[in-house]
């Protein structure tokens, strides 16, 4: 009822305005239609075709063989591993990011807040690829980390850090941490700290005040941050490629190999579609969660 009333009562909606609104959205719609929807449809079609021979990438007959391939050994393991790494990255980002965001949001001086925020996004000023290679150098056998540890006598020979899942995890966490920090910062910044006083006043120690009041009320930021980290890391390609080698193979790398050289376009397409499905599921979950949050927090007219 409220919804009906709201749209009916919305000022300035007449035919001409509606058309003008469409005109405003048209460039974006054309762009997305041409370069997003259309290629996506092509990939969808290819995913149901068969691999061709002698330079032909795909051909009939129509088949679901590619999907069966992708969802069985060994490919399906890559999916599980990717989801695992992405989930682990998200959790690590959360563990590091939440206290950091909290720290930034609770600085009393505005200058300090802006400075720390600036430091969080500072890495974006350098190229992603360069940063990833820098990590590789850092972790290398004769890199600063190993050298220092050896000089300190803590280890006798260099640790194998590059080309491990650990390196991939490290790289992903490093790259996506800001995406976790910023939304959490936004929700902590909006948080009314008087509520902590109220909780303290009612007998809650700081831990319980955090768990019962602060965390639930900053959850929207946590959810948004987790989605922003989870989605791109599931499909990460450069980081596992550079830091993981053969050890940290993720979906992104799997898809690349299928489209390259003697690859298999239909299988790669199927892998892409499955990955997209995963991401969409995550997004749907997010939308549903935030819709529920919006519903419970919705202001209802009084009296």
């Amino acid at each position, binding site marked *: 009822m409220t919804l009906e009333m709201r749209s009916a009562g919305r000022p300035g909606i007449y035919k001409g305005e509606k058309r003008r609104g469409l005109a405003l959205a048209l460039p974006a719609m054309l762009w997305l239609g041409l370069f997003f929807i259309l290629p996506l449809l092509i990939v969808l079609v290819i995913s149901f075709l068969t691999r061709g021979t002698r330079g032909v990438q795909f051909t009939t007959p129509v088949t679901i063989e590619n999907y069966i391939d992708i969802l069985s050994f060994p490919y399906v393991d890559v999916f599980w591993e990717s989801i695992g790494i992405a989930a682990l990255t998200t959790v690590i980002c959360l563990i590091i990011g939440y206290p950091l965001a909290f720290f930034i949001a609770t600085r009393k001086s505005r200058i300090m807040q802006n400075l720390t925020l600036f430091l969080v996004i500072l890495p974006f000023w350098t190229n992603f690829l360069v940063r990833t290679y820098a990590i590789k150098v850092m972790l290398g056998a004769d890199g600063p980390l190993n050298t220092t540890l050896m000089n300190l006598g803590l280890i006798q020979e260099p640790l194998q850090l590059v080309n491990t899942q650990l390196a991939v995890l490290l790289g992903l966490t490093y790259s996506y941490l800001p995406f976790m920090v910023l939304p959490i910062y936004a929700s902590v910044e909006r948080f*009314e700290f*008087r509520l902590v006083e*109220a909780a303290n006043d009612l007998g809650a*120690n700081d831990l319980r005040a955090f768990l*019962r*009041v602060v965390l639930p009320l900053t959850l929207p930021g946590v959810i948004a941050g987790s989605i922003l980290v989870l989605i791109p890391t599931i499909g990460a390609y450069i980081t596992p490629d550079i830091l993981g080698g053969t050890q940290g193979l993720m979906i992104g790398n799997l898809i690349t190999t299928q489209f390259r050289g003697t690859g298999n376009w239909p299988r790669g397409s199927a892998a892409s579609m499955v990955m997209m499905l995963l991401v969409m599921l995550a997004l749907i979950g997010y939308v549903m969660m935030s819709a529920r949050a919006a519903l419970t*927090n919705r202001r*209802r007219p*009084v009296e």
Partner: protein
Amino acid sequence: MSQQPQIDIELRNVVKEFTGRSGEFQTRAVDHVSLTIERGEFFSLLGPSGCGKTTTLRMIAGFEAASSGEILLRGKAVQDVPPFHRPVNTVFQDYALFPHMTALQNVMFGLEMENNIPRPEIRRRAEEALEMVRMTPSQFHRKPRQFSGGQQQRIALARALVKRPAVLLLDEPLGALDLKLRKEMQYELITMQNDLGITFIYVTHDQEEALTMSDRIAVMNLGKVLQVGSPEEIYETPNSRFVADFIGETNFLMGTVESHEGICATVRLDESTPIRASYRSEEALTNGQQVTVAIRPEKINIFAAEGSVKHDDGTSDEATAYREKLLRDPDIVMVEGRVEYANYIGTDTRYTIGFGNGQKLVMREQNFGLRNDTYYEVGSRVFIFWDYETARVLTH
């Protein structure tokens, strides 16, 4: 009840200093405040914004630590007791209800924190508390945002009272409500406080609210407590210019002490105008001292210098005869003046009376009869008089 009043809260020389960001400046928000608040008292901290009243309250609650001095709750020093272990609860200015919890969950929260109350009892007590503040069961499961300001206020009250605190701290709890609702809530708060017998410490900047509700009031300014007393004491015998000015409306007349004896001082306002006024016996006056005389507008009476004076009982006197009759009373102080300004405000008419050598007084005359019967024309000559005890000599 024992003969000796039990002290619920005692503040001894409490100081709160806030240090600036770089540490080079300090503000003293609370400056050597000492107070004793008895069990079951409705005690108000009254003062303008920034006077330190809220800081004082927050130190009692435990949200701020005193820079020096002692705070005792039922005889126990609480400086090192965190807020969640103090037997006090707060009703916050903006209610501070948990927005993600229903009204009932908000009220249950405090009991859940006590760890040893069984769930059904928590629920029962929370429901009782909400019913006590006149919430209906159909409202229990709504979120704070779905309530009006007055309703949120009640939930906040229930949430604090369900803890059965020794002392309830209220930080301008009615500040956000409109006038009518305020009056209603004032009455409800007083009734509730009487029924529960809990000590209330009530912070407000609204002098009328403080006068209406309190057993005792502490008037604060610039971090200091200026006067503590019952509403009558504060209103009738203010101890300083600030208190007299902050509470109600007051005329201030400047003058020098000519003579003084007992509680009566003669103050010369100008060469032609000596008036008598009362002073507090603990005040040490010296002749020749510069002082302020404070007189409330409603304490001053008026009659026309010519013609007859109509009385409320229907009789009338000739003006000069009436004057002589009044002057026979040694307590009466009378001056002759002119109506400089008359302002009709419905229940009363406010007159500005000029007298002596450029002196002015504002007085109020209640409009008993029709306007014409009690109206003094601007420019007309009048006598104004008052009981000397209602005029107060203030030295600071």
